[in-house]
């Protein structure tokens, strides 16, 4: 159940379902609440899929605007969140099919830190491990990468992931397994 105060302005207390109903009828205030509620997770998803912040921002922006236009047709057989994940994921997959990003995010923290000579070696090592993971993630096949990002970075259930990527749960589990295995191997070779 959603909690509600008594001021008329706090649409923020409403659940997605109610907001979607209003937004689908053209209530842009309701849609604005949905945008602010979900954009951070969607941007993180796109960012880890595309490896590049401005590409990710563009993907999320376009996905949300197209969602606004398509909301009147939204039937509600998925949640708004799953539906949005799906739109963003498709955009990212299409984008990554087209080109390789010009400024990869991993370039930020390449294992330069991992000489491990000084005292804060631990932090440096952890940063380097994260950079190695980002690099390994970049090399994953997009279909595996989506599943891994949705599961490990976004915390979606297998069922939700299956809905987002339009595959059955067994396929999702298989992709996750192979993604994990590849990431572990790549990280091991880095160490």
């Amino acid at each position, binding site marked *: 159940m959603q909690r509600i105060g008594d001021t008329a302005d706090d649409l923020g207390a*409403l659940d997605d379902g109610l907001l979607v109903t209003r937004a689908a009828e053209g209530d842009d205030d309701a849609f604005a609440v949905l945008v602010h509620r979900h954009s951070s997770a969607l941007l993180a998803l796109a960012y880890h899929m595309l490896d590049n912040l401005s590409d990710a921002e563009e993907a999320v922006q376009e996905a949300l605007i197209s969602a606004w236009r398509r909301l009147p047709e939204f039937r509600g057989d998925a949640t708004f969140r799953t539906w949005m994940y799906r739109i963003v994921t498709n955009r990212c997959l299409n984008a990554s099919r087209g080109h390789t990003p010009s400024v990869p995010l991993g370039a930020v923290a390449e294992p330069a830190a991992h000489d491990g000579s000084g005292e804060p070696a631990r932090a440096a090592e952890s940063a380097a491990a994260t950079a190695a993971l980002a690099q390994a993630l970049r090399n994953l096949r997009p279909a595996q990468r989506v599943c891994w990002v949705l599961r490990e970075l976004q915390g979606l259930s297998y069922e939700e992931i299956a809905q987002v990527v339009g595959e059955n749960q067994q396929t999702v589990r298989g992709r996750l397994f192979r993604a994990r295995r590849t990431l572990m191997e790549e990280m091991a070779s880095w160490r």
Partner: protein
Amino acid sequence: MAIDDPRGTSPCDEPATSRRDIDAARLVGDERLPCGRLVSHVWDRARAAGDQADPHQADCTFCRQALEGLTALDNATRTLRGERPSAHTVAERVVRAVRAEVRLGRMLPLDDPARELRIAQTAVAKVLRRAADRVPGVRAASCRLSLDQSNTEVTIAMTLATTLDQPLPPRAAEVRRAVAYAAREELGLAVSGIDLKIVSVLEPLKSTASAEPAPQNGRGR
């Protein structure tokens, strides 16, 4: 049965059936270790176990090998999970674009003597929803408008979510008054009927709402 039953499920394993299902349809790329366990199971168990250590896994070299690197991956994953770029700019851009993209819907006649003025349905719905929202403990969901055969009067169909801290009939009456008032006085719409349906329950926000007096809203009375 050997302790290293390839099924890899001990009796105390809660999601035994689901595990068996997974094993039956083995994941593509999964591998059975020489000790009989599937790599995917070893990982799942290591993650799920936590407090309940698995005696086999603790002693088995193959399992331990399969687990090497899992902790490193999990640690790095946690850090990566924290990398969340701010979405503020994107959200603002989207909201601006959406607000600029006017969706008018049908045009409805206003109740003016010359019958020349019309108003966009979405604008009407917005005002009427707001009127309902101002009634304490009520939020409007859908607000649909239909033009009567006369083409001069409008029927309002609204669905509502409400708290249950007051009886519904008087509250619905209050919504009806507020909506009728807004339609007539704020918009100048001729209304032939208002259908209200309560479709969802809201929980009062006890912490603040009970501490503050209900806001005075001058509308609808």
